[in-house]
């Protein structure tokens, strides 16, 4: 086949070159697969020949124990899902409000700004598990009227407060990432400071921080297990109970698998979103 005449409006690729490119891609895929399989075989052989392997297999990868405890773990995991689903929107709202509070400039808002800054400093500085202990054991002891005393309530509240501080910082970095010339252009059109935030800065800021926010979601899914320290029977607590009755650790592996089944798709999704926004920003350029 001959090349089209120069200047013709078609995307022309030399068929011979195209064939070579495809051949090379196939070879690369084959080499990669073979190398991966070889690696897995070598590692399995080494591990299965270690002297302790039979015992480890019996205590951590016991099929019978797995089948027996897995359904219980799954239903306990529904509590983790519930905590996550309730906490996440509250975290987003709290984080956004705190980030906005910290951008307020008018002197009358000084108390708001001080409180927001203190909140972020304090809750970002305390380990999440400690916040859960303090709220979960401390506040019910106060016997406040009108507040529920449940461990699940205070455990979730602690997660919201702890993650809210992180997410507020993520939002703030998003707000900072919008170029000052955008704010200037908006103000020059007569939009007020608040309108500029609402219509120009925030929509761009939120778009910029979606990937890091997704990372925090993944982290939160895992940290729902920390609520176990207050006693509610979620998946980690359930696995603990199972292991202490049978002296077999397989339920822990089961619990880990449940978390992974949820977090891996979420991680891939976050990667995809990140890659997409990176590509879009590169294509977007100037304007």
């Amino acid at each position, binding site marked *: 086949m001959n090349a089209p005449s120069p200047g013709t409006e078609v995307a022309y690729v030399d068929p011979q070159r195209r064939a070579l490119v495809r051949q090379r891609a196939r070879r690369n895929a084959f080499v990669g697969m073979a190398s991966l399989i070889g690696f897995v075989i070598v590692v399995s052989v080494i591990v299965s020949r270690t002297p302790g392997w039979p015992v480890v297999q019996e205590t951590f990868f016991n099929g019978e124990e797995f089948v027996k405890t897995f359904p219980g773990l799954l239903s306990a995991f529904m509590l983790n899902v519930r905590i996550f689903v309730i906490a996440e929107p509250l975290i987003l709202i709290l984080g956004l409000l705190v980030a906005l509070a910290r951008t307020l400039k008018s002197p009358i808002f000084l108390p708001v700004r001080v409180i927001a800054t203190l909140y972020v400093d304090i809750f970002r500085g305390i380990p999440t598990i400690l916040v859960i202990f303090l709220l979960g054991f401390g506040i019910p002891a106060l016997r406040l009227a009108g507040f529920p005393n449940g461990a699940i309530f205070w455990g979730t509240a602690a997660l919201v407060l702890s993650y809210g501080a992180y997410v507020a910082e993520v939002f703030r970095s998003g707000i900072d990432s919008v170029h000052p*010339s*955008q704010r*200037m*252009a*908006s*103000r*020059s*059109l*007569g*939009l*007020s400071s608040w*309108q500029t935030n609402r*219509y*120009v800065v925030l*929509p*761009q800021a939120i*778009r910029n921080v979606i990937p890091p926010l997704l990372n925090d979601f993944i982290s939160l899914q895992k940290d729902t297990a920390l609520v176990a320290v207050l006693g509610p029977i979620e998946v980690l607590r359930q696995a603990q109970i199972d292991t202490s009755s049978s002296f077999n650790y397989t339920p822990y592996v089961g619990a880990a698998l449940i978390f992974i089944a949820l977090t891996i798709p979420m991680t891939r999704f976050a990667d995809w979103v990140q890659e997409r926004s990176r590509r879009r920003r590169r*294509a*977007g*350029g*100037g*304007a």
Partner: protein
Amino acid sequence: MSGSMLEVSGVWKSFEGHPVLRGLDLSIGHHQAVVLIGASGSGKSTLLRCINGLVMVDAGRIVLDGELDITSFDTDMDAARRRIGIVFQSYNLFPHMSVLDNVALAPRKVLGRSKAECIDTARALLARFGLESKAGEYPDRLSGGQAQRVAIVRALAMEPELMLFDEITSALDPLLVGEVLEAVRELKESGLTLLMATHEMGFAREVADKVCFLKDGIVLEQGTPEVIFSAPEREETREFLARVLG
């Protein structure tokens, strides 16, 4: 109408101790087109930003239409900016909005007009500048010339009494400069008062009623384009023109 559209008197502005404007005076009549020329750093951009209230002056007064003192601490700057449009070198369109929304946003939110009315007006303005087919596009799909014309339309949608142009062709591919200057020419013909910082000397000569040469933060020499470009009095003006005109 009597008096001037804009009266700048004795304006000083420094950044971190470095003086940029040093007691600058400037007067612009109604419907006049005034062009600011001068080397980078002579204070052109800073002056335009002071007039728009984006930068606060250190001393002096800027009065719009004989009645609104932009430099007063009691002036509602959001209200003042509605009357003064500005177009920047780097377009600064809002990348998350379509061209139409870029243009309609401020009239809608600031002037409180209905959505339908703002969209109609925006479409009509875009059509006037040959941009009707771009209404639904996002800014990253526009050429530099189109983006800058949209920025002009966006400022125009607020129906300003005075338009400021801050080197609006400096970031453009030379092939695209013409279409943007054509838009400015049309504004001039419509009678809008213009103040324009530019390096396009040919255009300045054609469109300006008055040319001001800025150096070291003051207007060193001003006059009609014929005088400034053909028979400047000051040695510095002659040197500057010799350099930019090659």
